[in-house]
């Protein structure tokens, strides 16, 4: 079993977001970066499957060198080796093209990643990679089991869930509760230092989308407080003032 897990390097979920350089760049000052929470689920399930079935697990990141602590963490959690495509990606299509290029070179049975990154929230990279490789993609996957050359997948659908059985290879966008997040142990951290982290240059891709400027939402007006003893007046306010009923 040859597994590829793609990870993003994103601001922590509690990070306060702001921009610099005339609102053209994220202000990274004081921001803690983490492996994307959904990618972390994908990684955890990938490690479990590798331990169960044997084979190899490679972790892939498309991004700059400042992501290396997060890549090392993925190695400490159980990936065998890592690839970093050295780029500052701005576009989903670009990222997907890099992943597809690496996948074509190495041939994986399973390509796992989070359902979406929590910075751009697009949720399209798994679909793009699947189509570029001409293999199926499914998301969001909440449960994944392998049996020979087949995967049994439980995915969330609007208001419920669906169970699919599909032949490998596959690209899957993952979310909880596919596995519990793993915390690296001391042995993992020690061995991660010597595991290979290969840095490769990106393949050229036409500019599809280019972000121009960023902005923060307009500040919220003051909250109108209603005394608990007059709670029922809220309904009238929602109807006549807020006009949402």
């Amino acid at each position: 079993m040859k597994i590829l897990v793609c990870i993003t390097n994103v601001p922590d979920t509690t990070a306060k977001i702001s921009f610099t350089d005339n609102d053209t760049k994220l202000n990274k000052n004081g921001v803690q970066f983490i492996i994307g929470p959904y990618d972390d689920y994908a990684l955890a399930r990938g490690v479990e499957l590798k331990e169960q079935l044997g084979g190899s697990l490679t972790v892939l990141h498309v991004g700059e060198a400042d992501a290396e602590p997060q890549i090392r963490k993925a190695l400490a959690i159980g990936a065998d080796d890592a690839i970093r495509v050295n780029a500052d990606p701005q576009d989903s299509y670009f990222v997907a093209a890099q992943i597809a290029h690496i996948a074509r070179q190495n041939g994986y049975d399973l390509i796992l990643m989070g359902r979406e990154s929590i910075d751009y929230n697009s949720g399209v990279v798994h679909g793009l990679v699947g189509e570029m490789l001409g293999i199926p993609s499914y998301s969001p996957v909440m449960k994944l089991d392998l049996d020979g050359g087949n995967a049994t997948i439980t995915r969330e659908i609007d208001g419920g869930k669906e169970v699919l059985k599909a032949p490998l290879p596959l690209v899957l966008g993952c979310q909880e509760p596919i596995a519990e997040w793993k915390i690296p142990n001391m042995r993992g951290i020690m061995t991660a230092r010597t595991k290979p982290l290969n840095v490769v240059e990106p393949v050229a891709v036409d500019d599809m989308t280019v972000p121009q400027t960023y902005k923060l939402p307009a500040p919220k007006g003051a909250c109108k407080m209603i005394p608990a003893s007059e709670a029922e007046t809220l309904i009238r306010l929602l109807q006549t003032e807020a006009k949402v009923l």
Partner: protein
Amino acid sequence: MIMSVLIYVELDNGSIKKTSLEAVAYGAKTAEKTGGQAVVLALGKADAGELEKAGLYGATKVLHASDAKLEHENSLAYADALVQAAQQEGSQIIILSKSGLGDAMAARAAAKLKAGVVSGVTALPETDGGFKVTRAIFTGKAFATTEIKSDIKVLVVRKNAIEVDENGLGGGSAAVEAFAPALRDSDFTASVVSVEKADSELSLTEAEIIVSGGRGMKGPEHWQPLLDLAKALGAATGCSKPVSDLDWRPHHEHIGQTGIKVAPNLYIACGISGAIQHLAGVNGSKCIVVINKDPEAPFFKAADYGIVGDVFEILPKLTEAAKSLK
């Protein structure tokens, strides 16, 4: 060939979903700017009368593929059909509504068409000097203006990206045409083992009103007052992450950064303190009401209306008042 905007609409029991009707209006307004017509694609079982309604929202034509193989949602085959429709209609702009299916189809279609794809679009495009869209990023904590440079553009639009009510844009009825895309076996390699769907429940992503509960509800056995208010308001019900982690409520009700992102007109949070990860899932809401016994709960900072007090005393009062509305 006439240039057109192609809009994919999701169906629910033969009717077009409300978020998809918004996408039709979005597509029609975009077509006004760029020239050309708004053409709709519907896949699977649908009532022709319901499809004609797309006209009210500005569509001139609806392509309907009713092949039995397309009855069950299949993002791979649907994306193939979308590409074939775009090629037939010469569509340079493709619009979908934000959902798991919308993102999956958009991605696969974009890769086939070598098109730029932007998901989470919150407003109509600017077309003076390049084609630019605004999208929500960092789970709604910020916005980005992005230029799409490719010839073909794929947009996935969020709920409330355009203001439109049940009268739509006041258009006429659209002509429904049969459409027969070529289906590829490679899109049908997966077999569906089972589908579990809570049919009676309102979908959170479609709901105009949501009543949501947190740990302050004190346990699954105390949920009834919340369900009563939801019923009186015709609302869907949601919950915070701790509540679904504790199995007090099902996982598909979990709203937040790692759960479902919602954008209703009215969001009522009961006993939810308002962790930043929860706020990230609700910041698209038009009006937020927070009920919490702790006056220092961070959620009040993000709320439009607040009540400090015991949810179990307040909820029945609200339910009574809501019932007397009707």
